[in-house]
């Protein structure tokens, strides 16, 4: 599927696409396949940049909560980053935490209200830089909460600086010539690190670079929340999200850049399920298999989420 860049009309492909259809109003006699907004989002409006992957991830977990029927027992604990502004548009009881501190706040909430679904929403700067100790200990304690990481490999809100998950060669405002192993050190693969803690019951890494990845990530959210509901311990979903602004690349190049850089290092897949840590080879094999499966579904016009 080639990108059509900024071209318009019907002249870019090998066949004539025909006239533009009216998409201003809902059609008569057709059923809604997917609504505009998830139930738990109060408004479309947000302040994320064009091409930002975070709102895509937000839709995923909000839909998962509704699908599981736990909307009315959910509490969010939000860290500090671009995504913080979703605290006003998510129709979820919410506690705002400081940078890096959401897992401990979530622990306090869950200890007082053990039957609620408690989840954190954090970025990589928040969780893996400032709050690394918090998330590791919360996972090690096996707290029955779900930590959600939006990983774009930069501190987005402050303008695009290197974090602990930025990859070698990645150019940021604090690694202008690209991250250098000798000078800046190596990235932390936080999902892989957490998977090795006994208290962590379900650990997955999703991505939002294409429709198939988005669909797979939503399944990961559901399985993570189910893990919490069964009281099996700590659950974790990392989601690679695009940040063309923080990566200093054209907006439309976000997904391909992400796959070629972050995606090569932070590998997508279910890292730990049923107490078993899966190998990188298993993850690559599964990713290839799922990709083929999803392309077939899309060609047939149906994508199962």
């Amino acid at each position, binding site marked *: 599927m080639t990108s059509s860049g900024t071209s318009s009309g019907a002249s870019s492909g090998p066949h004539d696409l025909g006239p533009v259809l009216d998409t201003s109003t809902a059609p008569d006699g057709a059923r809604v396949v997917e609504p505009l907004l998830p139930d738990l989002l109060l408004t479309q409006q947000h302040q994320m940049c064009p091409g930002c992957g975070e709102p895509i991830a937000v839709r995923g977990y909000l839909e998962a909560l509704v699908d599981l029927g736990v909307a*009315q027992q959910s509490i969010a604990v939000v860290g500090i980053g671009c995504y913080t502004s979703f605290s006003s548009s998510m*129709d979820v009881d919410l506690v705002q935490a*400081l940078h890096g*501190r959401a897992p401990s*706040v979530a622990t306090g909430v869950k200890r*007082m*209200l053990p039957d609620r679904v408690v989840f954190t929403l954090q970025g990589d700067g928040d969780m893996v830089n400032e709050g690394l*100790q*918090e998330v590791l200990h919360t996972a090690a304690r096996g707290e029955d909460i779900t930590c959600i990481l939006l990983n774009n490999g930069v501190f987005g809100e402050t303008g695009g600086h290197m974090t602990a998950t930025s990859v070698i060669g990645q150019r940021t405002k604090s690694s202008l010539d690209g991250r250098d192993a000798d000078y800046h050190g190596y990235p932390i693969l936080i999902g892989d690190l957490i998977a090795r803690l006994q208290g962590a019951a379900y650990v997955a890494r999703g991505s939002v670079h294409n429709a198939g990845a988005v669909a797979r990530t939503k399944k990961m959210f559901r399985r993570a929340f189910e893990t919490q509901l069964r009281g099996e311990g700590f659950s974790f979903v990392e989601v690679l999200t695009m940040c063309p602004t923080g990566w200093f690349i054209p907006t439309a190049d976000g997904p391909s850049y992400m796959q070629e850089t972050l995606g090569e290092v932070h590998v997508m897949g279910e890292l730990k399920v049923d107490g078993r840590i899966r190998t990188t080879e298993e993850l690559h094999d599964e990713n290839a298999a799922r990709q083929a499966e999803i392309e077939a579904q899309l060609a047939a016009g149906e994508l199962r989420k």
Partner: protein
Amino acid sequence: MTAAPPLRSDRVLMEGSEALVRSAIAAGCRFFAGYPMTPFTEVLEHFARLLPDVGGACVNAESELEAVGMAWGALATGARAATGSTGQGLSLMQESFSEITLAELPLVIFNMARGQQDYYQATRGGGHGDYRHIVLAPHDISEGVALVQLAFHLADKWRNPVLVYGDYLLAHTQEAVAVETIAYPPLPPKDWAVDGRASGSGQSRNVTPLGVSKHGQPAFGQEGRAQYAASKIPYMEREVRVETAFLDDADTVIVAFGTPSKFVRYAIGRLREAGHKIGMIRPITLWPFPYDTVRAAAGRARVIGSFELCAGQMIDDVRIGAAGQAPVEFIGGVSTDGSGFGVGRLLDVDVIEQRILALHTGQPLGMIPGTDVYRYELAPHQKEPTR
């Protein structure tokens, strides 16, 4: 020979830490998180032992930073919760203290301090921004039991953190105490708390220090939030508490707080028996500080002395209170033991009595015994101020 007084079966001999913890539980505290650090550690131990029995939770957090975070989460659900440490550990919690105050959460903080040098930290705040915490300083375990319960009540009344300033002496000595629940006037329900049940209803809530609320609801904004928080401060100042003695005829007034104030009180008692007109002011709330009481005393006294186990911090508030009506002198000093945790040479009634008498009779104060060696000496490059 007279008969011994009947044994009070409701009193149990216990260390201060345990008494304070039992009092917190009697006040309804159901969550505590902390990190071991001397002389606070036993508070954590007693909470860990006693909270599960009442259906509460105590977490030994991975650092003080996470301890205050956990208490934050528990408070957000509407529970009564506390954290604590010694001054050094509270230093780590300062960012959260500032933000918890903005979020209007009723945190109770225990400082089992290593002396009285955490006065600034407690009353000025080591965190950023305009905030105040009500600070209660018990002078013994019995008062500590009462002030802990007052702390939880005031915290909920004002939706503002309250700090209980204790120390090594308070934590580690034993007294026979009866811990009973103290009744306070009723408080409104915590309709601001979040428990998940409003999620998905369109009426969900945020507990936040930021001036943000849900889409469609009015919001403070950052400036509004800060203005709102600052405008609460004058109202909380009405919660001032102070104890005074012999002020009617005092030429010299000594101001002291916490456990050392009992030593000061005893010394003053002896000096009064010898005919000296000396009075005492004991702030029970360090914030709000009893400025009016000091001002009234300064109007009649010749000199005010500030006794503290530190280099002099409360003396600033004494000077503000005196408003120039009488000179204010420092008669305390840095005093601790070899470990740095606890009491030192200055906490000695004879030494204290000497220093009060010297102030009262206009004699120079002697050096605190044993400190002669540790006086700073200027190096040649430091002799002149830099212009």
